[in-house]
């Protein structure tokens, strides 16, 4: 079946099996390898992308369910000229990644958390609970949380 998605701002159409998961559509059909698969029980969040602006675990969405929607992956986050998104920048400055495997999903989850906070100032507890669905084995989360708090204060992310 044909599934059409606006992927990082560009309309794409691929012919995939109905059983194709959105994460495999992104990785195999569209060739964007940044989004990773880390588990098979919807637990780890390595596959997190934005679907119509909100974080989802792309391993638990069929590509067919995303038809005609917009999908943003890690590759679509930085500016066209390479300027990193405040969350990416904060991860770099605060050493929020080691092996990098959980990182794309972690970054997208935090982008979504910050985007949805409204007027509320995110506390450390908000971040930690907000990331309960994103597992990391390398960092112990300490620097990820620091990076998220720093990014949340970035002026560019204030509505």
């Amino acid at each position, binding site marked *: 079946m044909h599934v059409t998605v606006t992927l990082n701002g560009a309309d794409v159409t691929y012919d995939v*099996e109905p*059983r194709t998961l959105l994460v495999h559509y992104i*990785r195999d059909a569209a060739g964007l*390898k*940044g*989004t*990773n*698969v*880390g*588990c*098979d*029980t*919807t*637990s*780890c969040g*390595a596959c997190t992308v934005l679907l119509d602006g909100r974080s989802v675990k792309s391993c638990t969405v069929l590509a067919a369910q995303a038809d005609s929607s917009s999908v943003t992956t*890690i*590759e679509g*986050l*930085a500016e066209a000229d*390479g300027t*990193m998104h405040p969350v*990416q920048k904060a*991860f*770099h*400055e605060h*050493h929020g*990644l*080691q*092996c*990098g*495997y*959980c*990182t*794309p999903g972690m*970054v997208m989850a935090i982008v979504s958390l910050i985007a949805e906070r409204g007027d509320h100032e995110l506390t*450390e507890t908000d*971040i*930690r*609970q907000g*990331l*309960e*669905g*994103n*597992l*990391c*084995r*390398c*960092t*112990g*989360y*300490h*620097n*990820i*949380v*620091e990076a998220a708090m720093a990014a949340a204060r970035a002026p560019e992310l204030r509505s």
Partner: protein
Amino acid sequence: MSILGNRVLRREDPKLLTSGGTYVGDLDLPGVLSLTFVRATIAHGRIERIDLEEAKAAPGVVGVFSHDDLGLAPMPPGMPFLNQEMTRPLLADGVVRYVGEAIVAIVAETPGAGADAAELVVIDYDPLPVVVDPLDALKDEVLLYPQVGTNNCFALQFGHDDTLFEGCEVVVRQRILNQRVAPCPLETRAAAALVEPDGRLMFYSSTQTAHGVRDTLATSLGLEPALIHVITPDVGGGFGAKASVYAEDIVTAWCARKVGQPVRWSETRSESMLGLGHGRGQVQDVEIGGLRDGRILAYRIDVLQDSGAYPAIGAVLPFMTRTMATGVYDIARAECNSNSVVTNTVPTVAYRGAGRPEATSALERAMDCYASEIGMDPAELRRKNLIAADAFPYTTPTGTDYDSGNYVGAFDLALEMAGYEQLRSEQQARRAAGGSRQLGIGLSSYVEITNGIPEGEYGAVEIRPNGKAIVRTGTSPHGQGHHTAWSMLVSDQLGIAIDDIEVIHGDTDLVPRGVGTFGSRSLQVGGAAVNQAAIEVIDKARTLAADLLEADVADIVLDKPAAAFHVAGTPAISRGWGELAQASLDQGGAPLMAEVDLSSPGASFPFGTHVAVVEVDTETGNVELVRHVAVDDAGRILNPLLAEGQVHGGIAQGAAQAMLEEFSYDAAGNPLTANFADYSIISAAELPSFETAFTETPTPRNPLGAKGIGESGTIGSTPAVHNAVVDAVAHLGVRHIDMATTPERVWQAIQAARSASEGGSATSTEGAA
């Protein structure tokens, strides 16, 4: 101004943050086929029948293979001191010994086709009795290898001295379980293989030891190592478990050669929970004896190691437990004996700490039990027994030579950071108030052995005519940031900018030899080798410069900020690195390069003290880690940002073992926690931010003064968190709770203590079995 010791941001990050890392599963391999394994669903049984006909005929299937198709010898246990008859067939050969053991390999056009075909494979088993508990395996009633006649694959017996505790006024005994855990790197195991047009085997591996992979493939497939090219792309975590070469790696290579097309194997998480080796798995019987004034005189630990079904490196880890048995304490007499037994479970391998967390956990629990027995504050007991700062080098009763240490310094700092006295006051107040939320304070003072194996490491530095440097290292980073760290070392030596230094690792064609990254060895041998190569390249450059500048070598000066050489006194006339590299090529054709095979300078011993604060709900048994303080000393710190990151990750895994994680089996050998939903891998919501500090007591053993840091966080944290939980309910009469301190275990311990006190029995020095 040296860059060493600075918080240099990682060069690895930009790519990882924007397009993501390139892991084995991401590699663009035209025409690659997918490899799917069919695995045993019972823990022990003879294979009566394997029916592959339907699977072979399924759409998209290229080949279906079982043991007899391979024609390959089984893998020997790997370590020479393991029982060499307990070999491991690459695919199950007539018998399966654990749930998850690979039996059939299916090569198909897509992962989906492979998964569909796997469902069509029919395997009939004739079940055999199962043994899961190592204590049962020790009895040799149910045997995994009947022809061998025992389940014991490795005994380390140094004798039992009945007089060990002579002169002790107090002896406390306790059985301690150091439970089986799963390493859970976010990237599961993966490998890809293809045969090049020239006949060489190209093998991509998610590994910590590229050259080890090459050599194992060579031996197994009967190929010359030179005919195998191993490349390590980005690796999504390893934690020791990817330092082993697995049967599936070899089968992947075999399949690619068999079908004549590229083959990729990328396991699912559920597979990985049963295929990637497990960690820990010791039953420990400890006895600790001394005087009532707190002086510890003697310590005994008997270890029973669960090896899993096929003995691998996990089976020999009791040797490391023995090595670090007495830890940071000045204990005159000690004994450590062990047996390693096979069970119908996933084989155990090295996992962050590999034998040393087990030693520290046992000893630190024993110290708290002893403190409780004599009614002394656990901090006071520890301080009384710490090896003094002026006692180094120090040899332990089990024959280990510690290089340097300042245990009291780290200890005092940790307690100061924690506000120990205040914590005890708050604890007292809560106990007096009698509410359900009680506070527990746990201590752990540890020392551990890094770079404990005798192998050295390869390092090379080459300068190109464009003035940039290429570093080749035998280490194998999987998150540690070696590209940043090694380029710091080389930049500091040569004056070449970090961004002009390329670091190459994990490619057996580009790096001729290497050992890899595990055991917290990389900086002290790998970094040291690269550093030495840089120094030797400077010597070569000076000779070239002397020639070009027509001066005496002794008069040549390296101006690092200018990245150029000149004659002392005339800095304006200089030759840059690029020019010298060109000159080297012009003169004899050889590049300006130095290669070093650094012999191991010997093991080093980082140490520290951790303090954990937990809140325990005495009605539900729920445990919350509210604070964790860590003071670690790994000698001279090259990059504090990277070192802290290692400590953080280590603390998370260590705390997880104490409170949450446990790989469980039922009595029939069925795994109960074989995916990320059932196995409680720790998340950010269960952890606080950590309070960390380094003290720096350099080691005299290597020129960098550096010890390893990679495993310290794990080793130090588990006992602190564990002790904190027991401490939280100690006032209710609880003496010990086994890890993981789940709500049920905590609640059961409280209930047992309540019944014991209501029944009027006195607390004894004999710990509960």
